[in-house]
């Protein structure tokens, strides 16, 4: 009885998400306040459901859910295995924190008339992302990815001004990306006659030499690569992150980015298998070199930015490159572990950084790094959280980001690729360089301005609790997760995730 109950959860998360989105829209007619609380409640419930799903998957194996009772090759199937469940927990946790964070930030940045619409679209975004993660059907993935993407365009544009142009650019590029993806699955459908991922994987095994399959692979990777902001395809991302409202930047940099990275991993490893990748190994050399170039160039570009949000956006591009580097070492256990660990670690660290920056912008309105001097005295907790997230992204030992880099380095040693080892070390140094600028301004520059000499209350001016709590929680998680990864207990789950991706390592 209880088993079937949990098996309903993947679909319930998506459908009740859409349900609650339109309830918020209707509630906007009567009251502009109530929508936020509906969103908060529903997201909290969904987060608990996702933990139940993870628990169920770990104890009983993967969930197959046939929508409408139609059998898989014909009907839509939702499949939740270890990898899905893990990513689902990560994105629902971060969307819950983003929703908690959003209240005050949205109250300040967005016109009150638009609040119900804003929360409606935010709920649609979360539901769409969850749908992308739990689905086992390539066409269903396309539809839900479009739901999530359309919600993202609207959320970016709600800020007005330059965000409009950034959103339009993202819309054009994102739609081209999704069209590439659709064309790719069209090719795959033409050669296999199925849309189910597991079925497609089986049918593709004998026709890897078919040109159609290879072109489809290129199209799908480029399409999802644009969405995930992989290096040469990232051009929409810095503008979109910079001009979006703080809460939207937070949810985009964590939830949406991780969703599409997941989709890329899922399609590359579960539909096209490692056998396919090994046949065309030269292409993957190119991917690893691109990742290496990204780590260096992206860090230098981040160093050149004075707008803090843009700097963090480039840092996100660099971190996606770490994931791609891990994926490109698909024949190494530690490389893949690093990539999978980075999904969680980067989401937590970057979420913490964007939340801290959002709090700072909420309190002071400053976006330029050069004016951050003496901020640590004014907002000690927020700046402390930012410091921890910066140290995490640099990769200082007990913190979470160190684990990613440590695994990736082990992966490099495993495949004897010493160039990439050097690139990862250099990347860490460059990360240190661009984060140190901010930390130096915050902690070690004294304020000589006369207008900051106020009374004690004005000097200590901390962010409100609904913004501070998620930031601090994420900062604590940065430390706790690092120690948790280092105890090597989670390696067991990573083994199972790699197995559920269909990768069999010796």
């Amino acid at each position, binding site marked *: *009885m209880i088993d*079937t*109950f949990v098996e*309903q959860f993947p*679909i*319930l998360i998506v*459908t*009740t998400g*859409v*349900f609650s989105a*339109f*309830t918020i*829209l*209707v509630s*906007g*007619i009567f009251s502009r306040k109530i929508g936020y609380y509906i969103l908060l409640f529903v997201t909290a419930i969904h987060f608990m459901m996702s933990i139940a799903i993870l628990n169920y998957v770990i104890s009983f194996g993967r969930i197959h*859910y*046939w*929508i*409408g*009772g139609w059998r898989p090759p014909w009907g839509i199937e939702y499949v939740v295995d270890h990898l899905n469940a893990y990513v689902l927990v990560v994105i629902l946790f971060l969307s819950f924190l983003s929703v908690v964070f959003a209240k005050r930030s949205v109250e300040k940045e967005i016109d009150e008339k*638009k609040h119900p*619409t804003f929360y*409606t*679209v935010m709920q*649609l975004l979360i539901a769409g992302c969850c749908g992308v993660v739990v689905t086992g059907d390539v066409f269903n993935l396309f539809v839900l990815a*479009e*739901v999530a993407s*359309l*919600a993202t*365009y*609207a959320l970016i*544009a*709600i800020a007005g001004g330059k965000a409009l142009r950034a959103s339009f650019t993202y819309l054009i590029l994102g739609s081209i990306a999704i069209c590439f993806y659709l064309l790719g699955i069209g090719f795959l459908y033409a050669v296999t006659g199925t849309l189910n991922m597991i079925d497609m994987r089986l049918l593709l095994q004998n026709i890897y030499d078919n040109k159609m399959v290879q072109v489809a692979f290129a199209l799908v990777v480029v399409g999802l690569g644009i969405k995930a902001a992989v290096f040469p395809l990232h051009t929409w991302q810095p503008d979109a992150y910079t001009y979006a409202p703080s809460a939207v930047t937070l949810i985009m940099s964590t939830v949406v980015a991780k969703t599409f990275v997941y989709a890329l991993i899922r399609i590359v490893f579960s539909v096209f298998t490692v056998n396919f990748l090994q046949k065309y190994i030269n292409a993957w050399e190119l991917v690893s070199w691109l990742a290496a170039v990204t780590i260096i160039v992206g860090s230098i570009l981040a160093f050149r930015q004075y707008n803090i949000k843009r700097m963090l956006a480039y840092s996100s591009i660099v971190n996606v490159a770490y994931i791609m580097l891990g994926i490109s070492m698909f024949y190494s256990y530690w490389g893949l572990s690093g990539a999978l660990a980075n999904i969680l670690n980067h989401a937590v660290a970057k979420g913490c950084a964007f939340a801290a920056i959002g709090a700072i912008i909420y309190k002071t309105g400053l976006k330029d790094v050069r004016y951050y001097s003496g901020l640590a005295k004014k907002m000690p907790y927020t700046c402390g959280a930012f410091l921890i997230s910066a140290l995490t992204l640099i990769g200082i030992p007990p913190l979470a980001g160190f684990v990613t880099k440590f695994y990736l380095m082990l992966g490099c040693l495993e495949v004897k690729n010493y160039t990439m080892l050097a690139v990862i070390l250099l990347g860490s140094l460059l990360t240190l360089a661009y984060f140190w600028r901010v930390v130096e301004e915050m902690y070690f520059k004294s304020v000589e301005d006369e207008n900051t000499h106020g009374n004690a209350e004005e000097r200590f001016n901390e962010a409100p609790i609904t913004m501070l709590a998620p930031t601090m929680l994420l900062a604590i998680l940065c430390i706790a997760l690092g120690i948790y990864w280092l105890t090597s207990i989670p390696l067991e789950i990573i083994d199972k995730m790699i197995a559920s991706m269909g990768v069999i390592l010796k």
Partner: protein
Amino acid sequence: MKEQKRDVIVEMTSKKILPIILTFGLYVMVGTEGAGGGFQGGCIIAAAFILYAVVFGIQKGRTKMPESWNTFFTSLGLYLYCGCGLLAIIASLFVAEFLNYSAFWPLTNLFGPYEARALQVEFVVEVGIGITVFAAFVSMFYDLAWKDEDEAEDDEEVMEC
């Protein structure tokens, strides 16, 4: 507001043709056997409203179909469609899958599983989709029609199909 120029022929023709369009939309929505037609029927009904707004002026159209009604109808259609799927889960005590209409017990016991599925697809789900699509398209039209006084909301409605 300046006096709008009225065209008697256009107004009379559209007055005569509007009920026919609405009936045709309803026919496309529920008149056929089996699934399909909700989106198309909703589009046709929305076209009738848009024709009305184009002919009689956008202000009059807005008074006939206010924004809050649009919001309400969009959600109502989704509740019908999505709620029907969720009720299948609830009515079967979490045994049947989402959208598995044949497990919808009161109907199943009365008419049998296939008839239950057909009835719900034909009369509940298609009508739900139709209402959502109709309200969403009318809402899109009003949002895109140039509003000088207040800002157009960029509110997108994602249809489920």
